[in-house]
């Protein structure tokens, strides 16, 4: 039973990475061109989403190693990364499901719970 959260959280980190990578490609593809952000910013939004995808991939990778504390801290960092995106863009007409502020914030909270899980796993391992 212990293995279920173990794998679910890791699957979640991987899914986040894929999701942000897709978002980066969508932005490059021009799907966000009409939302009102200046082009200089849209380019960097793609870069930021790419960094976010890479970050979650690192969290996923480190979660299998003894550096879980580092991956937990990185997950919190990435939670803040997404949170700034959510609270500063949710009013724009973006091609995203509605209520971005609500589900975006919930997603940040779940990310923080994932970080908490990783940290506890680390404590369990190091306290043996």
């Amino acid at each position: 039973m212990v293995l279920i959260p173990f794998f679910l959280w890791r699957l979640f980190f991987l899914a986040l990475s894929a999701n942000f990578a897709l978002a980066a490609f969508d932005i490059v593809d021009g799907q966000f061109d009409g939302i009102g952000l200046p082009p200089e910013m849209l380019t960097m939004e793609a870069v930021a989403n790419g960094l976010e995808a890479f970050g979650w991939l690192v969290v996923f990778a480190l979660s299998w190693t003894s550096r879980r504390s580092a991956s937990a801290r990185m997950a919190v960092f990435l939670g803040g990364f997404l949170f700034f995106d959510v609270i500063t863009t949710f009013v724009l007409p973006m091609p995203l499901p509605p209520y971005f502020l609500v589900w975006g914030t919930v997603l940040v909270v779940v990310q923080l719970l994932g970080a908490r899980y990783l940290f506890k796993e680390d404590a369990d391992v190091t306290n043996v």
Partner: protein
Amino acid sequence: MSQMYRKRDRALIFFFTLVGLVFWLNVPGLYAGLFDDTGLPPEVIPLHSLANGLEGTGWLLVAVMTGLRRYRAAAWVGYFVVGMWAWDMTTTTYLPNMPVPPYQWAWGPLTVLILLVGIGRLWRRPDIVV
């Protein structure tokens, strides 16, 4: 030992308070129109103001928790707010007419690194319960 930590604490408290104040300075700045010529859509200006206020409050919280010797808790808050700043810094790097020093592509990531070093110090400090 604890005396030695106290001295270093004061430096960190000063540093994080200063950072919190710098972020808070952007709140009136955004309302005063300092960022109006950057191309940011007008409807997101108040949202950036809110985000900067949250960040400033977060950094002040880090300073207070450092003073209370809750180093780990302070570090968790710090990692979250430095993530917020990293997003802001990255996405606004090449916006024109930003009322900030030039070469944001250089000093932006540098500030993230410096803040991470500061938080790392908190993270490695043992909690001393008084």
